[in-house]
């Protein structure tokens, strides 16, 4: 079956459809990871987006049961140069095409994804429309132009879990992944609440790996409800879309500041920054891939990171919070010097823009979860100290 991918600026691509059929709109973005399409497809952060993979062969190793990042898929479409018609991997239990069909995602192949990528790179991320039913390119272009777009839209509520669930009862989920770059501390459980803005499964697994347990709660959970659970720390997860549209979460996070150690990832990092009084802006075409160099400004060390974000924190907006003291930029992206991490100096809160949980992508930054554990330990020490004074 033929399919058409149209962009709001009038550019369109004809290709062959795979996966689900029908129509879908979304923001057109590209991802430069050469492996990890299954994790990308199941990452809730891609809600509202049509994703082009720059690597031309996709589907080579099929899909398997254990590499999903969430139980559902939020992505609006997948664009590839060439879908593999067979799959070959000892863990595979199905083809990518069947997986997309089962999850209602439209795929299109035969697209010059390099040309598409260069187009997005120069013109910026834009609205797009994918159709297997409409064979008129002009009509599909109009649909792209008429679609809602991402800015100002709260996509978190489309992907957050509606009911809380517990984690940390299982054995170390990474035991078959050895060697890992980072030792996991034994036992010593910390209770953590994960605010689910579209959390990737590997955030939870990474917490489990460093000995955490606790609950994953819906994005709408209030600060009061969270504090009532007496967590040792709160994890602000990744998630899709424009952070400034998630006002309810920003308000609740603000109430948590200083009361409990906080660690944010990706959208969680942006929400923490907004809660601290900072602002965010939309990047021209975002960072999506597994090869982004991030410098830890404290140590000077470089981590190769997995990233997926279209918005970034404005460093000028963040120097100081009236309520919570100085804030420092801890990490920057070496490709474009954008903010990749912040930390509060007076209160236990820090966050990173990239994905230390990887999946897909390098494991260089898994140790950040250990830093979170250390922060929780220090804060517990301080509060015990405070209690005894």
């Amino acid at each position, binding site marked *: 079956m033929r399919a058409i991918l149209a962009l709001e600026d009038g550019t369109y691509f004809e290709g062959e459809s795979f996966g689900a059929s029908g129509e879908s709109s979304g923001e057109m973005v*590209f991802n*430069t*990871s*050469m*492996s*990890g399409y*299954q*994790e990308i497809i199941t990452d809730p952060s891609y809600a509202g987006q049509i994703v082009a993979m*720059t*690597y*031309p*062969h996709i589907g*080579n*190793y099929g899909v*398997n049961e*254990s*590499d999903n990042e969430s139980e559902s898929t939020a992505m609006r479409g997948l664009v590839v*140069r*060439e879908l*593999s*018609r*067979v*799959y*070959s*991997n*000892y*863990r595979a239990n199905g083809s990518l095409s069947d997986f997309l069909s089962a999850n209602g995602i439209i795929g299109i192949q035969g697209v*010059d*994804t*390099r*040309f598409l*990528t*260069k187009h997005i*790179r120069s013109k910026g991320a834009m609205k797009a429309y994918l159709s297997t039913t409409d064979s008129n390119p002009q009509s599909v272009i109009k649909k792209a132009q008429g679609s809602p777009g991402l800015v100002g839209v709260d996509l978190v509520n489309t992907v957050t879990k509606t009911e809380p669930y517990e984690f940390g009862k299982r054995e170390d989920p990474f035991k078959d*992944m*050895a*060697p*890992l*770059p980072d030792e996991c501390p034994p036992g010593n459980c910390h209770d953590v609440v994960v605010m689910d803005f579209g959390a990737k499964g590997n955030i939870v697994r990474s917490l489990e790996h460093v000995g955490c347990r606790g609950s994953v709660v819906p994005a709408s959970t209030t600060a009061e409800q969270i504090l009532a659970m007496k967590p040792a720390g709160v994890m602000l997860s990744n998630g899709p879309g424009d952070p400034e549209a998630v006002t309810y979460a920003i308000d609740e996070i603000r109430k948590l500041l200083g009361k409990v150690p906080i660690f944010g990832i990706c959208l969680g990092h942006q929400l923490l920054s907004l809660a601290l009084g900072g602002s965010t802006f939309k990047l021209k075409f975002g960072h999506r*891939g*597994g*090869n*982004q*160099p991030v*410098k830890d400004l404290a140590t*000077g*060390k*470089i981590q*190769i990171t997995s990233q997926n974000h279209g918005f970034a924190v404005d460093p000028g907006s963040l120097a100081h919070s009236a309520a919570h003291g100085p804030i420092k930029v801890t990490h920057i992206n*070496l*490709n*474009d010097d954008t903010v990749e991490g912040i930390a509060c100096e007076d209160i236990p809160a820090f966050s990173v823009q990239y994905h230390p949980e*990887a*999946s*897909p*992508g*390098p*494991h260089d930054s898994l140790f950040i979860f250990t830093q979170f554990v250390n922060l929780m330990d220090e804060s517990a020490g301080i509060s015990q100290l405070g209690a005894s004074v």
Partner: protein
Amino acid sequence: MPRRTDLKKILLIGSGPIVIGQACEFDYSGTQACKVLREEGYQVILINSNPATIMTDPEFADRTYIEPLTPEMVEKVIEQEKPDAILPTLGGQTGLNLAMALSQRGVLEKHNVEMLGATAESINMAEDRSLFKEAMARIGLDLPRSANCRSANDATAFADSAGFPLVVRPSFTLGGSGGGIAYNQEELTEMVSYGVSLSPVGEALVEESVIGWKEFELEVMRDNADNVVIVCSIENFDPMGVHTGDSITVAPAQTLTDREYQRLRNAAIDVIREIGVETGGSNVQFAIDPETGRLVIIEMNPRVSRSSALASKATGFPIAKIAAKLAVGYTLDEIPNDITRKTPASFEPTIDYVVAKIPRWAFEKFSEADSTLTTKMKSVGETMAIGRTFKEAIQKAVRSLEIGRYGLGADGQDDIDHNELVKMLSRPNPDRLFYVREALARGMDIAEVHRLTNIDEWFLDQLAQLVEAAQGVAGRSLADIDAVTFKELKRLGFSDIQLAHLFSSSEDQVRAARKGLGVIPTYLSVDTCAAEFEAYTPYFYSSYETESEVKQSDKRKVMVLGSGPNRIGQGIEFDYCCVHASFALREEGIESIMVNCNPETVSTDYDTSDRLYFEPLVFEDVMNIIEQEDPDGVIVQFGGQTPLKLAEQLEDAGVKILGTSPDSIDLAEDRKRFGAVLDDLGIAQAPGGTATTFKEAAKIASRVGYPVLVRPSYVLGGRAMEIVYNADMLEHYMKTAIDASPDRPVLIDRFLEDAIEVDVDAIYDGTHMLIGGIMEHIEEAGIHSGDSACVIPAHTISEDLKTQIRTQTRALAEGLGVHGLINIQFAIKGTDLYILEANPRASRTVPFVSKATGVPMAKVAAKVMVGRSLEELGLLEGRMTEVEGVADATRSMGDYIAIKEAVLPFNKFPEEDTTLGPEMKSTGEVMGIDTDFGHAFAKAEASAGASLPTSGTCFLSVTDRDKAAIVPIAKSLRELGFSLVATRGTAKALEEAGIRAKPLKKVQEGRPNVLDLIKDKEVSLIVNTPMGRGPRSDGYQIRTAAVVYGVPSITTLSGAAQAVKGIEATIHRDFSVGCLQGYHAEPPKVPAGSPSS
């Protein structure tokens, strides 16, 4: 951290001659390192014995030592230069081993030389299998189960518990030399004994077989701040069991999930940290059990490697250049990515195309050698291709190989018996890719092919898609193919020639139809980032996509066609010339456009030319680039036969060929036309003729008299060239050795016995001629010039003959219409001069001549080809000879001698006879340079891996013809203190001349015989002239044993006579070392302007 300021002078060790397992990739890495270190303001001292390298060009280092790569010689260089540091990780295994030897001998400590990149401890940990195993255990990585064996008995004990098959890996050998797979006790015993004997530490690792497992490689880099990045992942098409150098490999990995890939990545990072490579690149190899996912580490190289050259070319990330910067203190984030300019080198390249590498073998040169591919590397070169899909890349890689295939099948060339097919699928061999395709084409299902080959089903399906596409359109008419179908086929990588076969049409018609439909290739950038950032480095590959990314340029531009994959007869020398052409163009302010498909080379470094196209060197792909670029001219004379073969077709297509015209080239190559030119000029040629049948051949032979030299026309490297002594041999040759046809007749010449052969390289600009040098061969005519040692300046040729040579060279260049380089081979018999052949193109000896004289012949020739004159380039002054208009570069040479020696690959093919003949067998060359012949010769031999002994026992066994001539040689050896042993006939001849030699049994005469002496290392030198060839002859067994046990073995009397001089010289005075810059600065031996009479 900024660059280190405590270092001033850095010693770089090159990798020596091109051998199997170590090729020009180390010239690429070393050249990059030299450039970087000098840009950073360090003084660079270089030692490398290989004159055919760019790195040994005198302008690439401050002091360039072309000296033997032995610990003794490097120590002398260290004593002389007193460097602060040594960089051992860019010169291959040779560089690493030398640095280790210097460290172990305390030389580095004594002279206070720091080892950059990796410490001796790290290198040892990576190279010593048991230390490596322990290190891997510390970081929780599995290795195949194994045991270190020092004898066959040790191995048998391990086999009792581990079972068969077992893999044998001798410690510290090049390219896995001496290794293999043992399927039974007998093979195990043989392999372990051989491996232990080859290993410098007398040890071999015997391990559990992981044959058939999936094989992966990761290229890792680390800086001194402990930042680590992975540059590239590589998946082998051929599963475990085939040496990675002999495997088809693909980048990036195709069949790993991210979770599995990250496991490899974590492991590779842990490995480089645990081994402790402080800065620079390493290569880590893994195997994965396809059934269970069990991961084992195979090995790590704590240095840049063949794979890192491939990874650099595959991704655009210049590993060696970055490694050199890291070695002097920079961190990855301080180094900009040249390609994007805006982003740093501290990232991991991501690519949006597929890269395929296919090795190139030379089994046609080694009839006795076993072509089964094992863990011992046998290929002599490789080609790489880039496509948007694996299918496109593999088809392009096949046509880059220049083996007469223009893609994978679909060319009517697969005619294979079914039983043969099954056998050839299960036995890894050079043509397995074609057998796989043929099996699929005949309907064998993918699962069955997988069962027979263990090749991953994903790759097999890709090949099946090509088969289906070809079958889907086969038999259709070209006129019926529409633009959409055409584009689909081109996107699958099908060449116009394949399509012509499928549509029963011609290449020209397909091309015309395709272009008529607007189906033309686009050129995409190799940009390290999958188009995320704009690329500034003009490095391109073709694909049939939406738009080209080449920025149009209106400047004057010239295209240089490269030489393709290395092979015997066409190696690094031609790449050297192409690189010089680019340098010359740059100096002349002309844009240079390089086309080549060999990832090992300097020419495919994106820094070398203004634009680089990584494309197959066949008409279709070259013409497409010409149409894209519209260059002012194309240089085809520098890349050997590869571009030369295209010259006529390109000219017919309206392309301007610079320099000597294709018609002039044909004039030299066409026997009849050439003969007419010689007749006109009154130049003598050995009598002969051309024939297409035995009858014609026999007639010519009886006319000119036996022995005759027979060879096919239009070949390089003496392919299928033989000396034929009688009519029977001639008949056999004509019937079996070659396919003669009216287009491709056989040349038959009177063979000039005992003649001295001379090579001349010269440049003619239409007015003046500059002769680079008259090179006198050590071996007599009849030994291929590529396998023969030669001397500059010619040491036994009279001035009168030199004048004749100069006169004839000039006359021929003029007569042929040469504009640029010409190479002529002459034979001197008594006082008569005969021309053997003339080649109006760059020759194999151009780099040697350039290094010997200091005149960069290829660069000068390129300038002449774009219109400069020798006179305005200032090259004539002080070099003019007695012959009108002819200058000779040796006129400005100081009082020294340079000798080129060939390096032969017999240690890789222990079954092969080592005698030399008209068919070229060497893979590389070395140069010895000194103030006298003896020392220069001894250095050349030492560099070639056959250090001449200064004492001990010499074994002599010569053919009857040579019995008189051996006497003075034997006498000199006795006087030099050698004891002599000889076979009975030779001993008797010597005794009659009053020289004592102990008679020894021949191999068939019982024991102890000469083989026992060789094995017991009681012989330090062998002189054995062939009395017959073939595996059963005595000489064959002696010569092959000499190779196995590393005893220098000389097979010609002329070689033996020179060896005596070398031995004598080294006994009288120990070696000293000298740099090229010093030699070249010496005042000329003959004062300028005073031609000798």
